[in-house]
């Protein structure tokens, strides 16, 4: 059983190597990607069941026992996030493959796209599974290095600026992470997360706070927490739709996961954290107001992404089992719905030839399928009952209501930010899908990677988007069992004992 934990890391990285080897066989390359991700999905599902039934599944790499060697740990939270992330990655891969087929033809292989895509998946899996602070850094680097390539592929003059911003900001945050690791090691003499849990508690409070704040800043940049979010709405919208969907779905959420893991395991507080509560309010409100000011569909969605990072921070800030459970459920819901929205935005852009909301109109009549595909995730994001967004927000609100006065006030902001989200998506709906018909704009640069202003869209692109919509509906339908799992995961996170016992024995 425990060797299974290595597969979500090993399979994609071996798949990436195979895709490089079979660089001339386009079909084989596509098949490798899909088979690998399906296999990882199955493994993640098995791990989730095992972790839920018998506790965290641990593997000691190289047979070295825990505080000395590196461990991979799949507890309820890791396995759940791994499963949902891989499902989303798979849907995005199918979408990307079909976009490439309809744009470049069936026989065009890619030297970079497939290997790098699988490498990104490797990094994400390792980040979820690792029980070691330095391996977490390595996981982030694998993931980010892959994302640098994906975001700067086929650059033009416009895209290079946003690509540079993204790379430089991420590199800076990585170096900050390295500094944090050095300080943590200097003060405790270990980088194993479970071992750190005990040793950090013995440190003087000032030093503990310093280390805790450093991790918040480091992961806050990666998670696009206000006021460290500037880079996100600037860089994400310029990438091709599948890339943006993957980044929006996974990368920021891995940052939130790292924050959740380190704050609950290494720096457990006593009661709600004032700093995180303030940051959560800022993130929710600034993101939502920013979204209302946008005319570019992708920028609008990026600001909504920032806003909803605040929701997850809120659950973390409440700092009890319910809050952690709410955050876990919200991450699951948000990974799915945000990726879906960016995929659908890609379909809309492809159809209308523009990302500017002003220049779209009457799309509901011309493409009812697109309208449904946009409406469901948009309402889910806003949290209208009975969608998964409502279930997740309810969990967060209950956590807030059960806390102190501060958390009740912030819970009010959660409602406000949800309303602002609803306002933003309804504005998009009215202006893009209703109103006068507008002709699609022609592609102003036919030679770049984006093929837009065409109704030539292969059916699998719709199917992939619809599959993700179905996943988010399934999350709502399975809300009972799912929130039972996240509640147990939240209780584990706060209790810490199952994780510590599983790792240190």
């Amino acid at each position, binding site marked *: 059983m425990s060797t299974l934990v290595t597969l979500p890391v090993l399979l994609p990285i071996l798949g990436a190597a195979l895709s490089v080897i079979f660089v001339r066989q386009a079909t084989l390359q596509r098949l490798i990607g899909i088979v690998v991700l399906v296999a990882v999905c199955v493994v993640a599902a098995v791990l989730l069941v095992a972790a839920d039934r018998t506790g965290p599944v641990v593997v000691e790499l190289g047979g070295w026992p825990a505080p000395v060697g590196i461990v991979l740990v799949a507890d309820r939270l890791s396995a759940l996030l791994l499963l949902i992330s891989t499902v989303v990655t798979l849907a995005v891969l199918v979408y990307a493959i079909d976009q490439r087929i309809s744009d470049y033809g069936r026989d065009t292989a890619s030297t970079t796209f497939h290997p790098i895509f699988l490498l990104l998946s490797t990094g994400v899996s390792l980040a979820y599974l690792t029980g070691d602070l*330095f391996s977490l*850094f*390595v996981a982030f*680097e694998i993931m980010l*290095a892959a994302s*640098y*390539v994906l975001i*700067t592929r086929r*650059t*033009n*003059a416009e895209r*290079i*600026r946003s*690509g*540079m*911003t993204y*790379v*430089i900001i991420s*590199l*800076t945050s*990585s*170096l900050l992470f*390295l*500094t944090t*690791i*050095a*300080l943590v*090691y*200097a*003060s*405790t*003499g270990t*980088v194993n997360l479970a071992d750190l849990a005990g040793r950090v508690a013995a*440190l003087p409070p000032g030093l503990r706070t310093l280390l805790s704040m450093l991790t918040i800043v480091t992961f806050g940049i990666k998670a696009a927490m*206000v*006021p460290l979010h*500037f880079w996100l709405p*600037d860089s994400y919208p310029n990438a091709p739709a599948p890339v943006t969907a993957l980044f929006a779905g996974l990368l920021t959420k891995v940052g939130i996961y790292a924050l959740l893991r380190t704050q609950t395991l290494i720096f457990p507080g006593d009661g709600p954290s004032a700093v995180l509560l303030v940051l959560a309010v800022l993130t929710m409100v*600034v*993101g939502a*107001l*920013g979204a*209302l*000011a*946008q*005319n*570019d569909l992708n*920028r609008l969605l990026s*600001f909504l992404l920032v806003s909803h990072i605040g929701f997850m921070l809120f659950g973390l800030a409440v700092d009890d089992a319910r809050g952690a459970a709410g955050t876990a459920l919200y991450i699951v819901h948000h990974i799915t719905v945000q990726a879906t929205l960016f995929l659908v935005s890609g379909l809309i852009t492809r159809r209308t030839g523009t990302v*500017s909301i*002003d*220049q779209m109109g009457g799309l509901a009549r011309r493409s009812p399928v697109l309208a449904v595909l946009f409406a469901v995730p948009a309402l889910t994001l806003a949290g209208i009952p009975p969608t998964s967004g409502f279930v997740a927000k309810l969990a967060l609100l209950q956590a807030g209501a059960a806390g102190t006065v501060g958390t009740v006030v912030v819970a009010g902001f959660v409602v406000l930010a949800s309303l602002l989200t609803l306002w933003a998506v309804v504005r998009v709906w009215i202006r893009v899908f209703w109103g006068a018909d507008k002709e699609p704009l022609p592609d102003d640069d036919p030679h770049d990677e984006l093929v837009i202003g065409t109704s030539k869209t292969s059916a699998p692109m719709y199917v992939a988007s619809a599959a993700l919509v179905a996943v988010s509906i399934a999350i709502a339908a399975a809300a009972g069992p799912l929130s039972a799992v996240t509640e147990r995961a939240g209780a584990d996170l706060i209790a810490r004992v199952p994780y510590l016992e599983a790792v240190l024995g």
Partner: protein
Amino acid sequence: MTTINIGMAVVLAVLYSVGFYLLMQRSLMRILIGIVVLGHGANLLLQLAGGPPARAPVLGTAPPAEFADPLPQALALTAIVITFALTTYLLALGYRSWVLTGHDEVQDDLEDRRIALSERPDGAMEEDTEGADEDTEDPGSAAASNEPAEIATGGPDASSEVSR
């Protein structure tokens, strides 16, 4: 807990401040050097986390107390490889930027400029020192022009409009 001698602390302070200072420059070459210097700082700190310098490596025979801690060295090696690879990538990206735009300066954010322009119709860009977060709180900017080509960016970086 590991302590650090004052000389190394000063070296670290200099590396970090020089690195962050260079990061805030406009030229991509300087930013790149800033990242390199910052990376050196982080790696040196990682080394020092293992204990004072000049202890024996884990090789041969010596009492365990006299060995240097090998773990930070392994971590620093990994980190050096990663920063090295990413620096190379950044260098390639900088070259690409130079090929595409003819210079290696960080380009203006058109969206930011557009908002500044809608605030000041006369296009007085020189006083524009507002951060990018201003666009998050200004619903009026949605009505601004959508034609980036029509914006005169002004200032020292007007050439950012030059396309290939």
